[in-house]
């Protein structure tokens, strides 16, 4: 296969620093050399390519935007470009990196005690320890404020009870960040180690989407953890939502990668596939599709770059992240569907990537705040009225 050619209609490359371009190119090569050659098998088998985790750690991909504790300490744009390039290969692998960095390492880094940081962050950065994030429950997805998992103080312990659903890295994780309500009604984050009696991770099977990702249900039944395993600074749901903001920011970038992969594939195919005696790329209907996808990718790129520069200055707002996540994932999914269409019958085979991206993006469209919930977040900012309350 010819090497991937990324679309850059607006010379956005020129707006990146030399380091940002180098980081992007390095991760792009990692995705081409290591992820793409094995992604079809893992998708077929429904398995996470675990063998890549140490290498991702060595490269510095895990918790790459965090400072200290053996993390790479990259800026927001470089971090976003990592997500873009990993998701160019597969949304499942990007989900792994997002959850490890933004949902497990980030809360330990920002809300944890010094001991917790020292114990967990360096091995997590190296990929030796894996983390997951338990907020969503079977009955509480878009409405996390209603979650039922309870934490009861008992002497020097906390006792956790409840169920967590759709937990990426769930069966792999050495450490789970579990969100629960205390008897006083306060939302707090707890670190629950693998093997703690009362914690069970059950793999969710039968997925059409994110097949190369580990997705589980976590059951906590009188799960007793030491009192010091609470994340000290978490007092309220907003700390969980801060984690989601980190992850959603990365997803907005990641979606560009998935869209780019599909576009690259469909563009090549359309120039090579001959029907009625000429390449299908010469037909106006196909040209219109390609032009539309390329335009939407360009808009997504500009949105993310501006978002990243705002984050760099510390001026980012949650509704801006919602605009980017909602827009970019919507258009990536639309692009993947259109590219599958351009590929014709061949597009349903796993020899091609667009349909895998399409199926993955159906999840990305729903998780980390559904498309509709993000509309409500944006509209709450516009109107001052929260429709979900």
């Amino acid at each position, binding site marked *: 296969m010819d090497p991937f050619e990324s679309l850059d209609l607006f010379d956005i490359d020129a707006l990146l620093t030399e380091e940002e371009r180098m980081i992007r190119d*390095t991760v792009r090569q990692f995705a081409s050399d290591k992820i793409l050659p094995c992604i079809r098998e893992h998708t077929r088998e429904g398995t996470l390519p675990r063998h890549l985790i140490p290498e991702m750690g060595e490269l510095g991909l895990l918790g790459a935007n965090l400072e200290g504790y053996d993390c790479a300490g990259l800026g927001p744009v470089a971090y976003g470009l990592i997500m873009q390039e990993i998701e160019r290969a597969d949304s499942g692998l990007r989900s792994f990196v997002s959850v490890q960095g933004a949902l497990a390492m980030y809360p330990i880094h920002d809300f944890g005690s010094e001991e917790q940081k020292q114990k967990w962050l360096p091995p997590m950065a190296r990929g030796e320890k894996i983390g997951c994030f338990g907020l969503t429950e079977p009955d509480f997805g878009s409405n996390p404020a209603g979650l039922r998992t309870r934490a009861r103080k008992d002497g020097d312990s906390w006792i956790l009870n409840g169920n967590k659903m759709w937990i990426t890295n769930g069966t792999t994780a050495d450490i789970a960040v579990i969100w629960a309500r205390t008897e006083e009604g306060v939302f707090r984050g707890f670190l629950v180690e693998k093997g703690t009696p009362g914690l069970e991770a059950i793999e969710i099977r039968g997925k059409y989407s994110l097949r190369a990702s580990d997705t589980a249900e976590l059951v906590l039944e009188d799960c007793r953890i030491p009192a010091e395993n609470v994340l000290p600074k978490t007092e309220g749901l907003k700390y969980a939502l801060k984690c989601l903001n980190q992850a959603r920011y990365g997803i907005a970038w990641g979606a560009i990668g998935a869209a780019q992969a599909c576009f690259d594939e469909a563009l090549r195919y359309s120039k090579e596939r001959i029907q009625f005696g000429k390449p299908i790329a010469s037909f106006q209907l196909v040209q219109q599709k390609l032009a539309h996808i390329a335009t939407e990718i360009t808009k997504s790129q500009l949105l993310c770059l501006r978002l990243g520069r705002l984050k760099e200055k510390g001026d980012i707002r949650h509704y801006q992240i919602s605009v980017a996540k909602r827009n970019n994932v919507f258009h990536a999914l639309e692009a993947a569907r259109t590219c599958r269409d351009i590929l014709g019958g061949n597009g349903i085979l796993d020899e091609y990537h667009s349909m895998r991206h399409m199926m993955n993006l159906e999840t990305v469209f729903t998780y980390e705040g559904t498309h509709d919930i993000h509309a409500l977040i944006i509209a709450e900012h516009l109107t001052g009225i929260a429709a979900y309350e």
Partner: protein
Amino acid sequence: MKCVVCLKRVPDTGTRIKIDSSGTAIDDTDVEWIVNPYDEFAITEALTHRGSDGEVIILALGPEETTKEIRTALAMGADQGILLQVQRPPTDPLQTAQVLASALKELEFDLLFFGCRGVDDDNCAVGPMVASILDIPLLSDVIQFDVEGSKATVQRETEGGHEIGNMPLPCGITTQKGLNEPKLPSLPGIMKAKKKPLEIRPVELPDSSLEIVEMSFPPDRPPGKIVGEGADAVPELIRVLQEEAKVL
């Protein structure tokens, strides 16, 4: 060990090469540039022989933009870079070797590394030429390299076998595929590379006695021929293979 790696900036191997209007050089307008892939073996090998008190210096001849490829080598772990800056890299390998050798004379290195060839001009010449000018031993196409004390042991691939040889330090090698597995620069390495020293020295090229007269692409392959379908086509296929292609 003090190691020096001579690095070349070459067009990305995926680039579609175009010949410019002069007909004697490539048109570099839309070319993506990369570190010569064989030089990645050289950098990786140098890093393994650096030791705790040594250093790895990257030496390159090229236009100012070559700092990007030197930074890549620094991100892989090298300590400092020197760019011998010219407007346009020479096509005569002897000119390159002379300029590199005069810079190397000041560096007092123990080990000198080159990729076995640049994937652009494929001359395989600069490494041996430099060693010859400096009057140091060099072995080419190395697939295993060990240093003990002041002696280097080298394994090379030869036609149908292997050859093992020794050289005293200082010495040089040109690196062949199989010597090691080059690693991607790590992201913290990329961030650190920015702060590492990179000196730019403008240099004059010596005169060249080599002239590129013409560059051309290989002729287009002739189109295939379909002689028929199924078993009925076999006699005709055999006839064509015997009489036209003359391979049977």
